[in-house]
């Protein structure tokens, strides 16, 4: 079963984030707060049924939403961030670096 590696990156200030694949909730992270030193709030890995699908993310308190077609075989890492007022999703093949 493929694994989706979620990284809640910069821009979170005690937020709640919901991640869903094809409408099915995969993860709900509460109280996310990003570190200025690492630009990371939290990471979370979740096993997923289908390899491909429409991934949707919402920051509930801020009314932010974004969606992305994802292929977990090619890009199992998903970075989620709020930058300049926008929800940014970035899928990658390699694990991102946090420093």
């Amino acid at each position, binding site marked *: 079963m493929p694994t989706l590696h979620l990284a809640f990156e*910069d821009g979170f200030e005690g937020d709640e984030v919901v991640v869903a694949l094809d409408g099915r909730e995969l993860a709900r992270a509460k109280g996310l707060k990003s*570190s*200025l030193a*690492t*630009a990371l709030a939290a990471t979370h890995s979740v096993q997923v049924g289908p390899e491909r699908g429409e991934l949707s993310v919402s920051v509930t308190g801020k009314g932010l939403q974004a969606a992305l077609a994802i292929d977990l075989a090619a890009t199992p890492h998903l*970075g989620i961030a709020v*930058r300049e007022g926008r929800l940014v999703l970035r899928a990658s093949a390699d694990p*991102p*670096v946090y*420093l």
Partner: protein
Amino acid sequence: MIDPTGASADAGAHDESFTASAAPGAQTPAAVEDQAAGNGSTRAAGAGQIGPLPLPTPIPFPLPRRGVSGRYRSSAGSFRLELRIDVDGARTLRRISGDFFSVSGSTTSYFGSFTVDAPAITTTNALVTIDGIGRYTWSPGFPKIRVTVPRVTILQPQAPAALQFFSLSGAPGTSYLCPFESVFFRTVQIETDIVSDAGMPFAAYNTGSLPSGGPARTLSVQSAYAEAGVEMRVAGASDVVQVAEAQAGATWSDAELHASMVRHFSLWQDVPQFKVWQLVAKNYDNPSVLGIMFDQQGKQRQGCAVFNGGLGGTTADKLRLQLYAYVHELGHCFNLLHSWQKSLATPPSPNRPSSLSWMNYPQLYPGGSAAFWAAFAFQFDDQEVAHIRHGFLNNVIMGGSNFAVGSALEDTRKFDRPIEDRSGLRLELAAARSFALGEPIVVDLTLHATDTRGKTVHPHLNPSAGLVQIAISKPNGQVVSYEPMIEQCIMPQTVSINPASPIGESVYIGYGHDGLLFEQPGTYQLRAVYTSLRGSQVVSNIIKMRVRSPVNAADDEIADLLLNDDVGALFYLHGSDADELRSGRDALDKVIDKFGAHPLAAYARLTKGANLAREFKMVAVDSNKVQVRKAKPAESDKLLAGLVDTVGDAHTTDPTMLTAAMLTLAEPARKPAQKAAAAARRAASANASKAMARSYE
């Protein structure tokens, strides 16, 4: 206040030999120059002083001359100066900067820093002369600076630099003779400790091992920082830290790292010092984190850690990542933020997500990690180098300002006009030409479309929304960014404008997050930057405004009453019932009661009257219940009587219009046509905002 730039400094144990003002034995600036140039022998060498330079020996052919960049330090007097000259050599920034330390008996304390960002530099065969006006961490009496450094051949020892301060009118202040100390602008002592299970620490990487954006060379942490002008001197007693200190799971938390730093960092003190600790460990609590500047308590930024669990290995890409991580974490210790997070600094700076810097994240670079590494030249960007070399001491030194505070203060070039501007927009900044001391400072911002097809823009011209920044150059040369007292989270909106329909807003900027901003008489210069929807930086015209000195006792007393943080907050908020602002309300009452006929009393009446015109809600501390103070229209009318004719909008409770009313009070002679145009612009903006708000409902 004692001022190391001028005559007042002489009251202390000043180095009389180099005082060009009042002290006995003072030298003229020319004499100091001659001396620095080795052309004279007007003084004898004494304790802590250097004697005249030897006359150059004639040589039959020209020898190459040394550069003059580096660090210089005066050695005598009541103030000691560390001077950094950055005008030639590798990656020159054409700046100078310095730190003053006051000496009293056997104690030495940091006094303040200055920097000259864009000096005029004149180089002859014999001398480098650097002229400019500094910006300072204090208000100097003599802000102009001239530095002269003789150029010597490579066979001669480096010559000292002579620094002379001048007043704005050209009167000489104090001078300092600073012998050469180092080719490096800063020297930092670094101690590296290793956790028992971490494996080998990083040593060096050849940047030609994989494609990159710079010349191939072998870089260690020390040589990477040397390229930025910093000497990293290995110091202290290297220690092996037992992994048991990480407690359960053998992974490290911030608290464990800090405790370990205090225990093992042999040079550690909870004070500002150019000393830093780097720990090589195996794993952080979150294995995705490969390095962290963990020290964010007490005196911050003194320690960082890198984690070999994710970084370790000997392949080229692993060695490259290790070099990057080690240098990056130490960059945080110098108070550098990530490239795309510069706006989170206090004060903020524009984000630079496409910066090819140690401080960027490869995966966030446009085009991704591969594009970053292919273009990365293994260096900091120019603004970061400027910060490291020339930032005010406490903003750079480990244990100085807290992380992110002052990390971008010197980046005032964001307010430079771009070389090319295709934004199709023009930002206009306007204000009254002069203000009384204590008077609320209000500016008018107007955004015009220059593209005849019109432009879609956001209408958020108030800096509180974070999309407009205003730089203020103070009479002492210090440049600061206006930081709003309250930052607003805004729902992104767009409006369409065309050349015939600009949008505008009046903004009170006299008081912000860091307090009062116009508390000194003198001439101020202001410039604003509007960040467009596409990220363009639309830079305004520069305006000059004068804050007038009080001319009589009443002016002086009113200025004292109004230059009060609580009054500033009340002007910002257009009044408030909050208990914590009581001293401000008392001051406004006193202005109204005692100086009712004074022009500045109108602001006090406007602020109080506007507040009384609205109801005011507060949460009671004891009951958590909302208490509502009803609007008091009769009392409001009494305060605002007479102002209506002057400002027109005084009875409104719309904050935008109230601020505009302040601007009209400041500039009663404003032509009716200008006032009408400004009102039309504001009305257009307000209507557009309301329309957008409705569309979101």
